[in-house]
């Protein structure tokens, strides 16, 4: 997935974008042979296309779309994407229109990632300039992180599989990226809209409010504020204009207002569409409730299904709380440590969520791997990169084979498949840990450069 990085020099960005779109379109024409939409890695109970079609059908026949525990997504998706599940063009693959929507969502996400990446790169250069580090760090060597991130997102096999496998995760990812893009370019209504939709589609995106507040309050990623202070103390002139702005509450309140407005709007729309079928309470129960109580224990690439299949009913609530609090526990320390880098914080949150969420799919991994591309310059000396790369390749090949061994051949059992899920979770943990430590090392290196300490080559 990171292979694309070096190729940018010789091939133009747009060639690769076109190539990836064409590749998707080719794959869309062979949906029968691939049968991706029934793979557990691609379609979870929340993102499955079949369930969406079922929910739409239920709704068309004047029943609650949540009847029978089949559909667990948003009612808005039903209204927007539902008609596409039954529209067919003669002589074309069955779900062509829906697939095209996914492809468009992917491309839009990639463009937004690119724009945000360019923003971040400019902000980084600006802060280096104000720290007078431009000479020490060869800025000309800097890669265009926006282009790289967009290409990683587009050419990542995970993204392609999620897109061709007709899951709704391209749409969810687009909402998350929209939120981050809006916050980075200070389009507060857009950011609020993205955040509300992302939270509405998948509950876990709610914690992105913290990076968004930091982004709006103090601007995009920059080295820690105290470095600026140190730098200016050395020079003994305190140039306020060169300092990064202090935290300002104005945009945050603005954001809160817009978020409130959008959520009321979304809830009203949902309420209207579910008026006859139990209203909003029904929706909360079968979307958020379904996510939080881990009702569906069909195997997926996460670790919760196995655990809750084993756990005694008596302890179930206790462990539900433990597992979900796990995410919440990590929010605060990370927010304190990485508050000067809100976008990186968002990446870490997304990665942690995709690791601990109840119904993860490869689409979630596609999102955070794409966001990782923003920080290629900062993470240039990340450790274990080859190990992680090989691990991801190995697990993503081994997991379907283990599933096949268990379900189709009957010679394996659930432990085989769960083992790959655990390895996958471990890989994600290593990625997050190494990523965060590489980022902190990078900050440390900048500090050393400023304070003029003897540079340690290896750190």
């Amino acid at each position, binding site marked *: 997935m990171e292979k694309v990085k070096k190729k940018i020099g010789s091939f133009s960005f747009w060639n690769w974008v076109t190539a990836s779109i064409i590749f998707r379109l080719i794959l869309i024409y062979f949906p029968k042979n691939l049968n991706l939409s029934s793979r557990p890695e691609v379609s979870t109970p929340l993102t499955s296309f079949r369930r969406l079609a079922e929910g739409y059908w239920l709704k068309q026949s004047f029943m609650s779309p949540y009847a029978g525990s089949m559909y667990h997504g948003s009612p808005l998706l039903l209204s927007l994407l539902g008609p596409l599940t039954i529209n067919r063009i003669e002589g074309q693959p069955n779900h062509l229109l829906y697939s095209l929507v996914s492809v468009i969502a992917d491309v839009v996400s990639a463009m937004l990632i690119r724009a945000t990446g360019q923003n971040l790169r400019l902000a980084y250069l600006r802060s280096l300039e104000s720290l007078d580090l431009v000479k020490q760090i060869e800025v000309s060597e800097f890669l265009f992180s926006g282009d790289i991130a967009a290409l990683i997102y587009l050419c990542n096999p995970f993204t392609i599989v999620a897109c061709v496998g007709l899951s709704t995760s391209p749409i969810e990812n687009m909402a998350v990226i929209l939120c981050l893009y809006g916050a980075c370019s200070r389009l507060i209504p857009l950011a609020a809209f993205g955040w509300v939709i992302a939270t509405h589609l998948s509950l876990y995106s709610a914690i992105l409010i913290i990076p968004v507040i930091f982004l709006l309050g103090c601007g995009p990623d920059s080295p820690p504020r105290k470095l600026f202070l140190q730098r200016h103390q050395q020079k003994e002139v305190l140039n306020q204009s060169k300092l990064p702005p202090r935290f300002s509450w104005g945009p945050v309140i603005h954001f809160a207002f817009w978020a409130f407005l959008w959520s009321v709007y979304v809830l009203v729309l949902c309420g209207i569409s579910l008026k006859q079928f139990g209203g909003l309470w029904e929706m909360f129960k079968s979307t958020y409730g379904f996510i939080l109580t881990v009702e569906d224990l069909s195997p997926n690439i996460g670790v919760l299904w196995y655990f809750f299949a084993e756990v005694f009913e008596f302890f179930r609530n206790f462990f539900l709380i433990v597992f979900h609090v796990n995410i919440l526990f990590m929010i605060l320390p990370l927010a304190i440590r990485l508050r000067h880098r809100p976008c990186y914080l968002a990446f870490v949150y997304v990665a942690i969520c995709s690791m601990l969420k109840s119904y993860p799919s490869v689409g979630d991994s596609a999102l955070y791997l794409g966001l990782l591309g923003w920080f290629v310059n900062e993470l240039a000396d990340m450790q274990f990169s080859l190990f992680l790369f090989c691990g991801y390749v190995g697990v993503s090949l081994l997991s379907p084979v283990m599933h096949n061994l268990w379900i189709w051949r009957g010679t394996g059992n659930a432990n085989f498949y769960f083992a790959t899920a655990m390895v996958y979770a471990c890989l994600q943990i290593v990625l997050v840990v190494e990523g965060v430590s590489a980022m902190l090392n990078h900050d440390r290196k900048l500090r050393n450069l400023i304070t003029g300490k003897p*540079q340690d*080559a290896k750190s």
Partner: protein
Amino acid sequence: MAETKEKSLSDEKPKPRVRPIVRLGIFLISHSFHFSVVCCTAGVLALFLLPVLAKNTYISENALMPGSASPMLSNQHVSDGNRLVKDLTNPNSKSSETGIESHKIIAQYMLDLGAEVSFHKFHPQMNQFHPLHFFSSPDSGKIQENYSCSSYGINTVGIIRAPHGDGKEAIVLVTPYNALKSGFGEALSLGIAYSVFSLLTQVTWLAKDIIWLVADSQYGEYAAVAAWLREYQTPKFSSLSTPNAEMCPDVNNLFELKGHSISGSKFSNSFRRAGTMASALVLKVRDQNEQFEDTISIYAEASNGQMPNLDLINVVNYLAVHRQGLRVNVEKLWSLLNSSWLKSLGEIFESLAKVAKSLYPKWKFGIPATEYVEGTATLASSLYYQALGVPTGPHGAFRDYQVDAITLEISPKFSLDKVWRNDILLRGGRLIEGVIRSVNNLLEKFHQSFFLYLLTSPSKFVSVGVYMIAFALLIAPLPMVAASLYVDANSSSNCSKGDSSTPSAITDTDEHSIAIRSWRWLNSAKLVFIVHLWGAIVSLLPYFISQIPDCSPTTSFMIWVLLSILSLLTLNSVLASPLACAKATQEKEWALVKSVTISSVFIGLGLMSVINFATAEIGALLMVPMCLLAQPLKLDVRAGTLRSFCRMICNLVLGHIAFPPAAFFLLKGMLDGFGNANVGDFWMWVESLWAWNSATYLFIGMVQLPCWVLCISILFHTC
């Protein structure tokens, strides 16, 4: 990697304090050479130890209770069977050209017993190219347009409904039968099946339905069984898919006659089903036999090295040996039986075991040398057939639907008198009856015993937990060597830069090197990726080549080779050229390429060991030494020491052996002699692999061939 970690830690604290696990990693990486030599040797040794480590089989599922009831098959049933054999071998029955007469006789016999009878018509499927088929679930198959009346087969199916059963489960008995040129053996197998069938219509203990499938083997035994199973498991509902066999006059003729002769009976035109299959037995009787006693051969390997549950083999083995006094055989590689080096190896193990026993009487692991040789021959054939991934009989079709099945081939000592024939009918019938009775007792499907095992004799097996050790030892050096190469490549480039630059310039160069250092492997990864992409293209090429009409195997093979080389050059010029220009000067580039290659081989072998262990084991024996030893020849020539000379020789030899066609011809030459080797043979072999959906084909195309190409490119690297 670990070294850098250590350094970064030492940056913080004056005293370096390294975590134990990191220290262990550093130790392993720094001693990777010794480590890999020890591991590889241990892996090969463990492979040869497997026959010694084999355990005796035991019946794991309690419900089976084999042999607990006395057999009920009496002489009455045997004489029934004899009657059918006589009728079938009667020259009058072979008058019809399509052999419909004999099918009618069989159907009539079944009907007389009160069984439900139906005919199943099928068209033999042509060889299709779907290499990923082993991975997907079985489907109803592609619909072929050009059916012709001239080529179809008829399976006769008889079903007994169990008096106590609920019709949810069934046991299948298959007898392949070619009505056009049936030997006496096939008729005899039908006789055995019929005598059992006639018994089963009367017994009260039956809890599962019995399906007797007389598979029309004129297009191959496997094709007939597979066609019937496909129809049974995945019914076709669309109107398109009903082939036009009904239009053919012969078939209509068959049905009309039936309808007339037996009106209102249990005969039906439609496809009949019973419940889910608990297990299946394929019964064959061999015509010729050189053995001095009645033996029964068990064939168990299904596609991609899948085996039926060990309990099924155990039951058959137990009943045949302890109840019916038959000798049980499994396939052996006969050429290994006479090899002297194996015999001496067995003697060494035997004497070692004696020494061990004299030291401590409780150590009893030795087996006699002759037994060792036989065990090794059986193990080798078990490995070989699993690695091929081609089923060894019609039972393979059942495994695709998760039904445990084996083929039993009875080879009687040949004589023509009636007493002998009755004896075989009685003993074979009682064996089948006993097995069916055991399976009938089952409450769930087979799950207790092993699915993953290798046989070293009919009553000895090596389970997955044991044979995986040999494999794991063999591939354990791969990640270690990859990591050590990676660390070396990174640190050496770093050091050289640090040395060459003056202290004042350190910051600058360091910044520069840091920016590329951690992700420098991406170039190598790109190269490896391109070669693997090429491997995928090469694996797909036969699909297009096989479309060319009237192509001899040799020309096909030549076209394949040419196209492969062409595509490699094209891919290289299109995708890899910027890399070659910009980074060729980079020092230690080959080490990174080797590191990434080894990682990819490790992933490939690990993956294959899950899909088909035997292929992975044989592939590892070839590829692991090649990957580990690969080093640019230029460096070795420059060094000029004895060690580098040896390595060079090893590299050149391995570079020749590990090339898939070369390995194939070498193996073939060892088994059959080099006299009649032909270039087209490889094409035929590969064709059989993809026609049988063997994962081995993909392994060769997408793991072994790219690995070989990468190793060769490392050997000829200009550094």
